C-alpha cells in the first residue's frame, strides 16, 4: 500500500514544476523589460525608459560586481546579500514571536469561549492600527525604554513591528483550525474520557494543520514586509530597507545599485516563503492530497 512519502514526493515534483514556470516568467519579464526599452526609444511612452531610469539587465548585473563605495573591496552584491540575510534574521525573529503569541491566543480563545468573545474583537482591532505607518513612532518610544541592563534598541522595535504584523493572520487561522475537528471526532474523544489537553494535542492540533499552513505563509510574508518597511522608515542600520533608501539617492550616478538592493529585498521575501514551504511539506507529510490547500 502506498505510504505518505509518495505524496511528499509528488508535491516536491509539483513544486519544482511551479518553479520551472516561475523561471519562465522571469525570462519573459527580462525580455519584456528590454523590449519596453527598445519600444521607448522609438515611441513616446508615459514613463521614462532611459538607461538611467531603466538600466539594461546586463548593466544591473555588472553593477552588482562593482565595489560598493569607491575604494572599497566589497562588491555591491555582497553588501546587499549581507543586509538581506540580516533582514531575514530579524524577520524570522519577529515571525517566531508573532506565531508563538498567535498560537497561544488561539489556544486560549478556543478553550474558553468567553475569552474568545473578549479577545477576538481586540485581535481584529489590532490590525486597524497601521503599525507599519507608526514605525518611526514605535522606534522613538522603544529607544527610550530599558529593562535593567538590557537596552531596547532599534532592532528590537523593528522585530516587534514584524511580530505584530505576523501574529494576527496566524491567530485567526489557528483559531479556525482548532475548531475544525468534526463533531463526531469530538464525541469520540469524549467517549474516551479524554482531558481537554489530550484532545488538544491528539485531535485539535493535527486537525488544524490545513488551516495553519496558509496562515503561516501570510504571517511570514507579513513579517518580511514589516521588517523591510520599518527599516525604510526608520533607517534601520544594517538592513536592506536602509540600503534601498541610500542607493535610491545615488541613481543619477549609479542607477543600477538601487535595483540590486530591491532584488535583495525580493530575495528576502522569496527565501522566507521557501522556508515556510518546507515547513508546510513537513507538517502535511501525513495528510491526503484533498486536505491540502
Amino acid at each position, binding site marked *: 500500500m502506498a505510504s505518505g512519502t509518495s505524496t511528499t514526493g509528488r508535491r516536491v515534483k509539483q513544486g519544482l514544476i511551479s518553479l520551472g*514556470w516561475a523561471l519562465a516568467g522571469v525570462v*519573459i519579464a527580462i525580455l519584456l523589460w528590454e523590449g519596453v526599452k527598445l519600444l521607448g526609444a522609438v515611441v513616446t511612452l508615459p514613463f521614462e525608459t532611459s538607461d538611467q531610469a531603466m538600466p539594461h539587465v546586463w548593466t544591473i548585473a555588472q553593477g552588482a560586481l562593482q565595489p560598493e563605495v569607491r575604494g572599497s573591496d566589497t562588491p555591491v552584491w555582497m553588501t546587499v546579500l549581507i543586509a538581506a540575510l540580516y533582514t531575514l534574521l530579524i524577520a524570522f525573529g519577529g515571525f517566531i514571536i508573532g506565531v508563538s503569541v498567535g498560537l497561544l491566543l488561539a489556544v486560549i480563545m478556543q478553550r474558553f469561549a468567553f475569552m474568545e468573545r473578549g479577545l477576538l474583537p481586540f485581535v481584529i482591532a489590532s490590525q486597524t492600527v497601521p503599525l507599519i505607518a507608526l514605525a518611526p513612532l514605535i522606534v522613538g518610544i522603544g529607544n527610550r525604554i530599558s529593562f535593567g541592563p538590557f537596552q531596547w534598541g532599534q532592532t528590537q522595535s523593528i522585530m516587534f513591528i514584524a511580530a505584530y504584523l505576523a501574529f494576527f493572520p496566524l491567530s485567526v487561522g489557528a483559531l479556525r483550525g482548532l475548531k475544525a475537528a468534526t463533531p463526531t471526532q469530538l464525541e469520540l474523544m469524549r467517549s474516551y474520557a479524554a482531558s481537554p489537553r489530550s484532545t488538544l494535542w491528539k485531535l485539535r492540533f493535527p486537525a488544524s494543520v490545513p488551516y495553519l499552513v496558509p496562515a503561516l505563509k501570510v504571517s*511570514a510574508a507579513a513579517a518580511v514586509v514589516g521588517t523591510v*518597511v520599518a527599516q525604510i522608515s526608520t533607517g534601520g542600520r544594517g538592513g536592506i530597507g536602509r540600503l534601498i533608501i541610500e542607493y*535610491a539617492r545615488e541613481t543619477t550616478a549609479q542607477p543600477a545599485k538601487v535595483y540590486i538592493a530591491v532584488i535583495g529585498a525580493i530575495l528576502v521575501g522569496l527565501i522566507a516563503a521557501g522556508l515556510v514551504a518546507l515547513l508546510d511539506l513537513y507538517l502535511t507529510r501525513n495528510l491526503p492530497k484533498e486536505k491540502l490547500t
Partner: protein
Amino acid sequence: MKARINLIWPPILIGALFLLAWQALVVIQDLKPYLLPAPSLIFTTFTSNLSLMVETGIYTATTAALGLVFGTLVGILLAMVAQRFFVFRNLMIPIAAGIAAVPIVALTPILNNMFDITSRTPRVLITAIVVFFPIFVNVYRGLTAVPPVQLELLRSLSATPRTVLRVLRIPNALPFFFTGLKVAAPLAVIAALVAEYFGGPQEGLGSKIAASAANTAYGRAWAYVVVAIIVGLAFYLITLALERVATPWAGRTRSA
C-alpha cells in the same frame, strides 16, 4: 437588531476603558509626549488642525482609491484570463505567490525613477500591485470553484465558454470577489501610506507622520495616525456596504 447591539457594545465599552486607562497612565506617570502622548493631547491636536488633517487624509485616500480601482480591474481581468488559458494560469500562479511573499513597497524607488516622482503615479502603481494579489487569488478561486455538476449541465446544453462565464462563473465569483476586496481595501490605504516614505509629494499621511516624528511633534504624528485609522475603516465599511448591495443573500458570517 438586539443581537447586533449585543455584539457592538462590548468592544465599544472596552475601547472606552482602554482610552481612559491610557489617559490615566500618561497623567499618573507624567509621561512626556515624546514617549507616549495622552489621548487628550492627540484629540486637541486633531481638532485644532482639523482642516489640515482632513486634507491630508483625502490626499492619501485618493491615492489609495485610485490604486484600489486599478489593481482590482487588473486582478479581475487576469483572473478571467488565467481561468480560461492554461498556460497563462501556470505562469500566473507562481508570480502571484511571489508578489504575495515579497515587500512590494520596496519597488517604489524604481517606479519613482521611471515615472514622474512629483506625481502620485508611482504610489498608485505600488498600491495597485499590492491590491492585485488578494483580488486575483479570490476572483480566480471564485471563477473556478463552480460545482462540476453545474458545468456538466451547461455542457449538455452546448454552452460556449463565454456563456458559461456569464451564467455560472461570474455569479459564483461575486462572494469570493468581496472576500478579496475586504482584504484589499484596508491594504490599499496602508500601501499608499507607506509608499509616501520614499520621497515625492509631501502632502499625504505617510509623509506627514514621518515628518512629524522627525520634528518630535509626536502629538501631531499620532493625530495623523488616527486619521489613517479612520480612512482605513472607511474603506472597509464602504466595501461592506457594496457587498451588502451586490450580494444581499451573502451570510453574515461568510469568512475568507
